[in-house]
């Protein structure tokens, strides 16, 4: 276990110190994008398409412009004059800012109304008269490649059909051969449907262009302000918005979860409008706009898992069809079109694996936006964890036993996975054992046997996942060419207090506290004496932002190394002050002392003061350090989750009785915050497992575009989570930390699905796709009984 090196007052790693950022939120003084109010600010509202696929015949602005207070209606034609009507996605596909002739999904932005008041802008949007010629939309991705399917993206040069890309990894021939030769092969088509992060704050922007200074100030709900600034400069440099003139401030963010990584068309239109009009323009999505404009998941995965008859896994193969909507807006590293999907071999040791994926266009909103998950890890983990359970059931082996039998062993790390990853560390056996002990696994097994004898449906589900986070090493990981490092800049003031700035951006993760704790650990300056600043591209060092659980693995590491640079400099100053050689100086948290004479010491605060007042001749004054951290590898957090459910056979209702989550995220900076992140991630895990999923009709209309029908769990649906930890430090991270906030979102859905299927297994039900809703359970039971 981890033992704290610092006192609670200093508050270094391992202390559950209370959060420094809380006060403003508790008093209603947070500053979110919609709270920003600038003099003369105008409001923008989007007109959106009622059709999934249609030609735009005409856009009549007249009635809208006649409304008092409506100043402009901006169309794709208007933007086309400046060549701003299209923009690149992060994966080098292209997305319309506003259409000039065709709309590609229901609710796509058609034009924008600018008015003096939010209410008037809504009236203006109602008054714009758009004439459409609807066309037959492609909604089913399996039909996108039909010969007679319309070509959805004729705008793309060389695009002959609706296929976007093929990707594969692993040895197909050997995997096929292993599967052909295996005693047991289980197969399943698994679909993870479209879901939306639905952060309680929607997305929005306030853009303010000053024609005199030519500066564009942008308040933006962005998890990655620096990268977005660069993208804007690339997109709009030709009209004069060059990077040094763009200042993006990501103020307080009301939840991100990946939904605030992309550049949405509304941002660009608001920025363009401010640029053209010369006044601040605010655009805030309403909830329906938020819910229907960009999605996570939507992978259809054909899985095959092969094993010996006594349950030793030999090979895994998965062929996936990915529905990307009308453009590939995946927020993935550019060399990883499928993100980290190749983590799909899981926590198990076997030789052969092959994964392939074909991505297609359909008439849906852009897909590939994250949902609290590191680039497709959720899809990968769901596939392997469902299949391992299916295999266990097939050979009548306990799902815990089959996992123990196949786990990568502690001593095998670093472990080279069959699809090319180098897992850094883990003790999977210990993690699962702890979960089983905490839940009382054996007792539940007995109870289940008794309940089954009475005809009752009770299930126990396990998931033992391995995540891959912290992108990433520059040799492999970049977004639009920008390497995925992250940064920290520390300034220790003469009085020994500090300001530290980062290239990341918290959306609730508590960076103002945890980064201060890392610096407290490394420097011994109390965390309360350290201010943390992020999100302003004019002041913060460049970084790729906060998503994919990368803040601690990258910026957290940068903080530690920058602090160590300071410590090295401090050592020279301490030697100077104590009048000994640098070699005679030793460090313990917060102070330098003379070897063998600990009474002769200087605190870090003394040294900081001296750095400005009494530094050695020839030394550069000041006490500041910056580090850009390029990680040598990714980190691989893991966990063992166990879920116990009961199912009401008559109504299909599912009661989650227990849920135990044991996470191993390496060394822990703040246990309170880590536990809080796990709780939150678990609720965002039960959400897609049992409640959430965007539903389309055959015409491509979203049927559940409000929070009345898109079922975000309340405190009642959310179980009382039980959590715990094992700690296996990352060997390559300076703090031994790994990142945690997405693990529960990745691990919970298969644990829940496995529990429900386990409950239903006696009836002959072997798989259900998530979300597993009562009506789906009821239907499956009815069908199973009819077949029996």
């Amino acid at each position, binding site marked *: 276990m981890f033992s704290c090196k610092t006192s609670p007052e200093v508050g270094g790693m391992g202390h559950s110190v*209370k*959060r420094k*950022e*809380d*006060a*403003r*939120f*508790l*008093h*209603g*003084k*947070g*500053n*979110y994008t*919609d*709270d920003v*109010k600038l003099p003369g600010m105008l409001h923008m509202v989007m007109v959106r398409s009622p059709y999934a696929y249609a030609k735009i015949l005409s856009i009549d602005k007249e009635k809208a412009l006649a409304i008092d207070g409506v100043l402009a209606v901006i169309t794709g034609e208007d933007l086309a004059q400046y060549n701003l009507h299209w923009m690149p996605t992060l994966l080098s596909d292209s997305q319309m800012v506003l259409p000039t002739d065709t709309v590609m999904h229901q609710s796509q932005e058609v034009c924008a109304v600018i008015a003096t008041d*939010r*209410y008037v802008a809504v009236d203006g949007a109602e008054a714009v008269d758009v004439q459409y010629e609807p066309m037959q939309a492609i909604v089913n991705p399996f039909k996108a490649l039909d010969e007679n399917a319309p070509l959805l993206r004729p705008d793309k040069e060389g695009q002959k059909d609706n296929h976007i890309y093929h990707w594969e990894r692993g040895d197909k021939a050997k995997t096929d051969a292993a599967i052909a030769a295996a005693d047991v092969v289980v197969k399943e088509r698994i679909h993870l449907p479209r879901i939306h*992060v*639905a*952060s*309680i*704050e*929607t997305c929005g922007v306030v853009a303010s262009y000053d024609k005199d200074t030519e500066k564009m100030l942008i308040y933006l709900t962005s998890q990655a302000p620096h990268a977005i600034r660069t993208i804007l400069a690339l997109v709009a440099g030709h009209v004069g918005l060059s990077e040094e003139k763009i200042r993006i401030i990501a103020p*307080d*963010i*009301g*939840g*991100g*979860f990946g939904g605030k990584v992309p550049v949405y068309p509304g941002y660009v239109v608001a920025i363009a409008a401010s640029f053209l009009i010369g006044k601040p323009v605010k655009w805030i999505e*309403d*909830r*329906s706009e938020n819910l229907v404009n960009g999605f996570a998941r939507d992978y259809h995965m054909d899985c095959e898992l092969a094993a010996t008859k006594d349950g030793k896994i030999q090979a895994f193969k998965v062929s996936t069809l990915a529905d990307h909507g009308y453009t590939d807006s995946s927020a993935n590293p550019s060399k990883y079109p499928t993100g980290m999907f190749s983590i799909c071999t899981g926590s198990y040791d076997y030789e052969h694996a092959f994964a392939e994926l074909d991505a297609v266009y359909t008439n849906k909103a852009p897909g590939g936006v994250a949902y609290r998950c590191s680039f497709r890890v959720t899809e990968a983990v769901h596939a392997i964890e469902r299949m391992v359970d299916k295999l266990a059931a097939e050979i009548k082996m306990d799902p815990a036993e089959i996992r123990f039998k196949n786990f990568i062993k502690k001593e095998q790390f670093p472990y080279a996975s069959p699809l090319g990853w180098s897992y850094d560390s883990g003790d999977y056996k210990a993690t699962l054992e702890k979960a089983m002990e905490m839940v009382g696994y054996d007792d539940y097994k007995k109870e289940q046997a008794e309940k089954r004898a009475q005809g009752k449906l009770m299930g126990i589900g396990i998931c033992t996942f391995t995540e891959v986070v912290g992108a990433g090493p520059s040799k492999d990981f970049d977004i639009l060419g920008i390497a995925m490092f992250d940064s920290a800049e520390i300034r220790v003031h003469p009085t020994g207090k500090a300001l530290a700035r980062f290239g990341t951006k918290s*959306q*609730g*993760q*508590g960076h103002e506290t945890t980064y201060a704790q890392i610096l407290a650990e490394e420097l011994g300056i109390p965390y309360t004496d350290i201010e943390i600043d992020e999100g302003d591209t004019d002041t913060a060092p460049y970084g790729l932002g906060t998503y994919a659980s990368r803040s601690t693995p990258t910026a957290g590491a940068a903080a530690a190394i920058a602090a160590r640079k300071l410590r090295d400099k401090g050592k020279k100053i301490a030697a100077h002050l104590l009048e000994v050689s640098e070699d005679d100086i030793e460090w313990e948290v917060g102070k330098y002392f003379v070897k063998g004479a600990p009474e002769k010491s200087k605190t870090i605060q003394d040294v900081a003061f001296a750095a400005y007042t009494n530094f050695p001749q020839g030394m550069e004054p000041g006490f500041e350090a910056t580090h850009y951290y390029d990680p040598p590898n990714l980190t691989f957090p893991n966990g063992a989750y166990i879920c116990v459910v009961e199912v009401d056979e008559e109504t299909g209702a599912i009661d989650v009785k227990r849920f135990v989550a044991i996470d191993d995220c390496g060394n822990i900076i703040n246990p*309170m*915050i880590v*536990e*809080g*992140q*796990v*709780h*939150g*991630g*678990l*609720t*965002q895990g039960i959400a897609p497992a049992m409640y959430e999923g965007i539903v389309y009709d055959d015409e491509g209309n979203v049927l559940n575009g*409000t*929070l*009345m029908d898109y079922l*975000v769990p*309340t*405190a*009642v649906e*959310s179980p*009382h*989570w039980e959590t715990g930890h094992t700690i296996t430090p990352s060997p390559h991270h300076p703090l031994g930390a790994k990142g945690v906030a997405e693990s529960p979102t990745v691990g919970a859905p298969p644990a829940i699905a496995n529990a429900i299927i386990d409950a239903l297994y006696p009836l002959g039900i072997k798989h259900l796709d998530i979300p597993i809703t009562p009506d789906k359970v009821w239907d499956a039971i009815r069908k199973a009984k009819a077949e029996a």
Partner: protein
Amino acid sequence: MAKHKVTMTINGASVSAEVDSRLLLVHFIRENLDMTGTHIGCDTSSCGACTILIDGKSVKSCTYLAVRADGANITTIEGIAADGTNHPLQKAFHDQHGLHCGFCTPGMIMRSIELLETNPNPTEEEIRWGISGNLCRCTGYNNIVKSVQQAAQEMSKEKEATV
């Protein structure tokens, strides 16, 4: 469209204004009064980020016309504790890590105030049902429940002390 003169008490101060019929109370508070602690999350009275107290009762201010609040006594997150002090719920949310991004927090606290008013010693289940009109996407609710429990204890101690 005719304007309507309204007068109401907000956080102890009397406020008068001319408002349009359709002005939503949440916008009146945020835009006209510049108190931005009350948030908008869903527009359909599903999420509770806009929860305030009207005459002591929790109300979703996105689904309430400003003009109907004429004569009402309104409390928002900005008005539950004097500057520099904390309401027991504010303290408890801090102590128990009952907030992450903070966006749902004001509404969650305003709802919890009435919950503890009507039920000073709620069970975990009663708390969960009691805040079921307030969505949180970050915390998984465990620590919100603990926050409300802590505040309940502290408030009943305070009450005992004053009796």
